[in-house]
């Protein structure tokens, strides 16, 4: 325990304050070509014609790539976990979000690359776009994804993440009142100060050196190797220095395309997204739509919860099924609710694909469940802190997915918070601990969900 409680230096602190930290944009490789992308101007459209010849013939242009240059066009970010691929590296015959990459140019400088992009001849046939996840989930809405408007590949090919616990019918029959709420947090752009940047250098050995700002270097290695259909030993990744990511640099946004351009041109290439591209085209935190109905008693017990969650994946699934799974495990928040009916769907829209961001899948459900706890307190006319303590997770309580809590900290956290805001608690709440439920805190309806932590 040399470190806990001690001040320790940041390993990169002095490099940061002296300008010596080498971010990808600071790597200097002579003869580097600059990359620009042709991106979809539409939320949803068919590509009816594309001709890149005028761009290829421009002086100063060294390589142009389209879907035809990608050895394996579709590879999912979570393919290794059995989540099927649904996203092409470069759009082939349709675009499903505004900003989706279609073709890329590597040229002597940024201006030539941008001019060449503008010379790519392309025609679109616009299609209806779904930009709201609740609307996309409506069975009457037009289908915007080839699998339908939501993900179909949870375990046993279920089309939703489902949790059933206890006896939900009993809870709603025995409630004094039902408290309902709908919660819809919006998309959030990570907006790192360093935009997505990648530099790839083709080595004489035939390997590629890939300077990446990724937060997930080994993920990115796997994704690049799969698309390129090359073994991992052909790729040398240089990473670990990220100018802000917050989850947004978990996706492999640039590395594969730069690798293809370096291979095709035989020259080092670099792609640095503009701030506008970062805002419009990079993945975001997802919008969510959450509907809660809680069966509650007059004295502040939550007997049961029904919850419907829609998670906006944007145009493709990427990490969304994983994020929704985490979300489902947390859908009772820091509280014990014995009877549950949870259904969560990963819904496709024509928004930019969504991804991880600080507390992937969980911040949304915390926002909904905490707001809902206060709403329940309002409806019942009880103290919002006391109702939290009463229902707080305790040793021996079980989570929605059946995990037995052995060291929950809800009680002490809420007590500390109450003290910090000067909220007076009655003695029995002030002295409450996380010890297993007994007496008044173990009403009949909570008996069945408790377990002996010693046996787990």
């Amino acid at each position, binding site marked *: 325990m040399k470190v806990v409680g001690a001040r320790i230096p940041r390993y990169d602190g002095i490099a940061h304050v*002296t300008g010596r930290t080498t971010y990808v944009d600071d790597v200097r490789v002579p003869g580097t070509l600059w990359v620009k992308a042709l991106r979809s101007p539409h939320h949803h459209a068919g590509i009816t014609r594309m001709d890149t010849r005028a761009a290829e013939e421009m002086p100063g242009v060294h390589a142009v790539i389209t879907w035809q240059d990608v050895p394996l066009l579709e590879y999912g970010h979570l393919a290794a976990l059995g989540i099927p691929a649904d996203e092409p590296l470069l759009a082939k015959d349709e675009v499903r979000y505004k900003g989706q990459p279609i073709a890329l140019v590597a040229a002597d400088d940024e201006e030539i690359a941008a001019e060449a992009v503008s010379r790519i001849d392309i025609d679109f046939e616009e299609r209806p776009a779904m930009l709201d996840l609740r609307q996309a989930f409506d069975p009457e809405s037009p289908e915007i994804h080839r699998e339908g408007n939501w993900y179909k590949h949870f375990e046993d090919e279920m089309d939703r993440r489902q949790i059933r616990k206890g006896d939900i019918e009993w809870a709603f029959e025995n409630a004094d009142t039902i408290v309902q709420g709908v919660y819809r947090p919006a998309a959030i752009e990570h907006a790192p100060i360093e935009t997505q940047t990648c530099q790839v250098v083709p080595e004489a050995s035939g390997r590629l050196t890939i300077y990446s700002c990724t937060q997930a270097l080994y993920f990115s290695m796997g994704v690049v190797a799969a698309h390129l259909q090359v073994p991992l030993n052909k790729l040398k990744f240089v990473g670990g220095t990220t100018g802000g990511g917050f989850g947004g640099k978990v996706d492999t946004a640039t590395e594969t395309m730069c690798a293809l351009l370096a291979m095709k041109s035989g020259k080092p290439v670099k792609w640095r997204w503009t701030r506008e591209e970062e805002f419009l085209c990079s993945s975001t935190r997802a919008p969510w739509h959450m509907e809660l109905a809680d069966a509650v008693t007059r004295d502040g017990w939550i007997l049961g919860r029904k919850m419907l969650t829609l998670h906006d994946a944007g145009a493709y699934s990427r990490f969304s099924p994983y994020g929704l799974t985490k979300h489902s495990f947390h859908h009772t928040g820091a509280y014990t609710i014995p009877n549950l009916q949870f259904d969560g769907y990963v819904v496709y829209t024509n928004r930019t694909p969504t991804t991880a961001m600080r507390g992937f899948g969980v911040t949304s459900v915390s926002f909904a469940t905490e707001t809902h706890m206060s709403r329940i307190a309002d409806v019942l006319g009880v103290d919002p802190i006391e109702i939290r303590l009463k229902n707080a997770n305790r040793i021996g309580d079980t989570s929605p997915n059946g995990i037995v809590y052995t060291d929950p900290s809800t009680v002490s956290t809420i007590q500390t918070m109450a003290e910090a805001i000067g909220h007076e608690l009655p003695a029995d709440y002030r002295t409450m601990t996380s010890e297993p439920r007994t007496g008044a805190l173990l009403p009949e309806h909570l008996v069945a969900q408790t377990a002996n932590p010693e046996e787990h």
Partner: protein
Amino acid sequence: MSFTVNGVTHEIEGFELTPLLDVLREELGITGAKAGCHQGGCGACTVLVDGEPKRSCLVPAGYADGASITTVEGLGAPEDLSPIQQAFVHHYAAQCGFCTSGMMLAGQSYIAHGGTDDAEAIQEALGGHVCRCTGYSKIIDAVAAAARGDSFDLTETAIGKYTTMATGGAE
């Protein structure tokens, strides 16, 4: 045209309207100023032009003709950190580090113009700088410490010493 960067005079070949940021980074290879937005919005490209903080992405190179420019590299080397650099290390005011050079140069200019440790005044001076890791309170603490003239023994507050891989590795 020519200008001085961190005490070294450079003859500049390029077009006068090329942003100073691009001349520094691409022509001179001085990369401490960062290209966060290229539109004057984030402050990461800030350098001092004759002591005044300027967004180098919005400054045409010709404007700096004859000027003396300071970038983060000119504040102090790892073995000879300036007070504001020491304060940023001590207060953990750099997280990802991408906004740090701009923040420090704005803070340096604020202090050089007689700025005090008043938190509101520091916020005003750094108002044009975005930190997305949201380390603002630590950054303000660091500028305040440097404004007060706090001194730091960076070896005593740590296990071992404040060292980096760049300066010789952990002890």
